[in-house]
Structure formats: structure tokens, C-alpha cells
């Protein structure tokens, strides 16, 4: 999905313009005072009531414009228009945006959870296309692709046939994997960190992932900024299932490829400006680098994933 940068800026500007007047009205400058009697002097007041308990449910929605690039060949980027945040936290059990967890321990040093989740690599495979490639016999007998061949009659993108035997070039299908594992969450004045280890329990890729990330949030008045660093080791099995090409999938258009495990890394930045208790403007950006063996796969066109979003978020 390609939208010119100007349109993206206009969309964000319009959203800001829509929201800003509502904010401004709540803080309209007042007229100067004409009378101010010297009656009781103002005093600093410290309420003594206990803090309100946090609700079990968290429900939010973000509306705006963003994109996540798709590193696969013949794929579309993933537009981000709406983002839902649904979570529930019980005493031990919790549901956090399709992660289902059980708190094993919680102490001043860390919190440990057992978590079941859906692997996130699969999301890229839902936005792929097919291209048809014609081949010619080169000197020496090799078949060499002719770029830009149209699809054969009766196939998608129907058009006139310029060659006899166009071959489909298609990213292979991949399934979602259910993974289970442990996570340790740390937090303090120094920031938040997590360690996670997950293994496939759905016999989909039969691999594992170990990851660590760190983030620190600065809050100044209504503005909040949170940079993040993360590393993730993805095993041979996991990497090869999603990013490799097995012999059954290989053909004239796609060579077999075995992806090895490796370490992905990412950096991100999230910023928020709180308009009210429940509404904020949010801008986030993220860069994820795929490890070399994945980046070299014939079904991978880019060695990185870039994500960004700008919009308004409501927390109910």
C-alpha cells in the first residue's frame, strides 16, 4: 500500500486540528480580575485518601495512520489505521492482547509469568501477491526468467499471454504457531526490562525464541517518551519454517533455501501527549533488523521492518 508522504502528513495534521480545539476550549484564558479580597490565604493541601485501585479491564482504541513494512517479496506493506488494546488482569491470570498468562511469582526483584501467545512472524504472510514469470532457454540449457511476464489466461490479473508457459512466483503459505513460555519482568526507577523464552507447542515450526528488551519512559508534564531496545534469538527451526523455502515449495521461480537461526534486533520510540485523562496523541516508530540468514532468503526482499504510527488514542 503506497500513499504519498504529503497525504500522510495531511492525515496527521487533520487529526491534530480536529482534536486541538476541543483541548483549547477547556483552558480558555480568563479575563483579568477586578477584585481580589485578602481573605483566607491559600495553603498547600495534601489529600490523605488512599489511591484508587486499578481496574481489571483495560480497553483502548487508537485511530490514525501508520504502516509496517513487509520484508517479503511480492508483498504489501501493512497499513495501521485502527489499533485495539484489550487486556484483563486478575490476581494471577491475565489476558493481554491475545497473550494469555499466569503469574507464577511477584517479588520486589521481578515478576515471572507463564504465557501462551501467537507467533508474530506469520502476520507478514497474509499480505502477499502472485507474480507470473516466463522463462526462456539460455545458452547452456538453463531456464532464465523473463521479467514482467503477464499471468496466463484464466488466472488472477488476467491479460494477454506473451509466452507459452508462465510460472507463478508466490510466497509459500505459513501457519500461525501457538507458543508457550516463561517471561520475567523487571521494573524500577531505571526503567523496564523483560526476558522471554518461548517454544512452539502447536507443532507448526517446532522451534523457539529467546528475547530481551529494555525501555525507559520519561514523563514531563503531559508529554511522555519511551525509547526501547530489543534483541531476539530465533532458532533454526523457527527461522527456517517461516523464512526458508523447502524442496516441495521450490520450483522454477523459487529456489530451495534453508534459513538458519540468528539474532534480530530492534529499536523503537513511543511518544504520547496527553490531552485529557483518556485521550492522547501518540506517535511511535520502530526499526527491526532481521538476522542475516533470514535476510538472504529468496522470499525476503528487505532485511528490515520499519513501523510507524501517528494518531489519537482513547483509553476507556
Amino acid at each position, binding site marked *: 500500500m503506497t500513499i504519498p508522504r504529503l497525504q500522510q502528513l495531511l492525515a496527521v495534521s487533520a487529526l491534530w486540528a480536529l482534536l486541538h480545539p476541543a483541548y483549547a476550549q477547556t483552558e480558555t484564558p480568563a*479575563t483579568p*480580575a477586578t477584585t481580589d479580597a485578602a481573605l483566607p490565604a491559600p495553603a498547600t493541601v495534601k489529600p490523605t485518601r488512599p489511591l484508587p485501585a486499578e481496574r481489571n479491564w483495560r480497553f483502548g482504541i487508537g485511530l490514525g495512520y501508520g504502516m509496517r513494512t513487509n520484508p517479503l517479496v511480492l508483498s504489501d506493506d501493512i497499513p495501521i489505521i485502527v489499533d485495539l488494546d484489550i487486556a484483563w488482569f486478575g490476581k494471577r491470570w491475565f489476558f493481554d492482547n491475545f497473550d494469555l498468562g499466569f503469574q507464577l511469582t511477584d517479588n520486589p526483584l521481578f515478576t515471572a509469568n507463564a504465557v501462551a501467545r501467537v507467533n508474530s512472524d506469520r502476520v507478514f504472510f497474509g499480505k502477499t501477491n502472485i507474480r507470473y514469470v516466463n522463462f526462456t532457454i539460455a545458452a547452456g540449457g538453463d531456464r532464465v526468467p523473463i521479467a514482467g511476464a503477464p499471468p496466463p489466461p484464466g488466472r488472477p490479473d488476467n491479460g494477454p499471454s506473451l509466452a507459452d508457459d508462465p510460472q507463478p512466483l508466490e510466497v509459500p503459505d505459513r501457519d500461525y504457531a501457538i507458543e508457550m513460555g516463561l517471561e520475567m519482568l*523487571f521494573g524500577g526507577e531505571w526503567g523496564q526490562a523483560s526476558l522471554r523464552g518461548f517454544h512452539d507447542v502447536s507443532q507448526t515450526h517446532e522451534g523457539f525464541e529467546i528475547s530481551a528488551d529494555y525501555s525507559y519512559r520519561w514523563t514531563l508534564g503531559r508529554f511522555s517518551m519511551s525509547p526501547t531496545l530489543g534483541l531476539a534469538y530465533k532458532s533454526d527451526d523457527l527461522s527456517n519454517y517461516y523464512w526458508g523455502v523447502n524442496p516441495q515449495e521450490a520450483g522454477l521461480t523459487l529456489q530451495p533455501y534453508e534459513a538458519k537461526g540468528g539474532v534480530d534486533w530492534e529499536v523503537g520510540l513511543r511518544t504520547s501527549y496527553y490531552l485529557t485523562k483518556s485521550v492522547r496523541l501518540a506517535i511511535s516508530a520502530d526499526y527491526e533488523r532481521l538476522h542475516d540468514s533470514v535476510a538472504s532468503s529468496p522470499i525476503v526482499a528487505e532485511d528490515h521492518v520499519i513501523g510507524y504510527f501517528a494518531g489519537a488514542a482513547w483509553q476507556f
Partner: protein
Amino acid sequence: MRTWLTLLAVTWFAARTAAGAEPPPVRLVVKPLLCVVDKPADSCNVLFDIRWKSVLPGEYCLNDETVAAPLRCWPRALSGELQHPREVSEDFIFWLAPPAGTERAAEVKVEVLRVGSDDRRRERRSRHVWDVL
């Protein structure tokens, strides 16, 4: 018929007079209206800029929901202002009312937003970049 019309006119005039005797509209403006609290802090120290303006002169007192006595009273004024330091840890209301009255002429709610949590599970980082909330 003439008597009825006269009575109707008198009633309408009396009703209008009674309506005119109601407290005049008062506008109360407070800045800031939002306190964002992040760990390790559990409250904000805020210097509130409080201003009010009335269409007609009146005697008003500024009240804080968490304090029994008025913060300040203004004798028969069209407007007033106050710089009020306060530590804020939960939502509360400022309101203006006549000294002896219970009816509020104007009120403004100050809100507290906590962006951190003692429950580390609520600080779990989302794994997808489009989770911006």
C-alpha cells in the same frame, strides 16, 4: 376575558422577574486540568491558576472538594483570580458558590492520570509496533 389576559400578563412578568433573580452565570477557568503521574512519583505538585468571571457582581467562595473550608472568598466582585499551590494525587473538583449557599455557581474537575503501574504485568511491552496504546 380582559381580567384573564391581565392575570396572564402579570404571571408572565412575575415569572420573568423571578428568573432574573437567579444567580448569574459564572465562568470558572482552572489551569492545569490534568496531572500526569509516573513512577516513582505518586502525585503532582501543581500551582493552579484559577480565574472566574461573573456577568453580575456577586459574593463567591472558591472551594476544594477535599477541604471543608473555602479556599478564598471574594466580596461582591465581577471576577477574581488565585494562584493556588496544591499536591494532587486523585481527581477532585474546584467550585464556586455563594458563602452561605450550597448550590454551585460553577465547577471544574481536575484529573489525575497514572501512566505507570506497580503491577509489572501492566507494563508488558507489546510485541507489535502497531500496538501504540
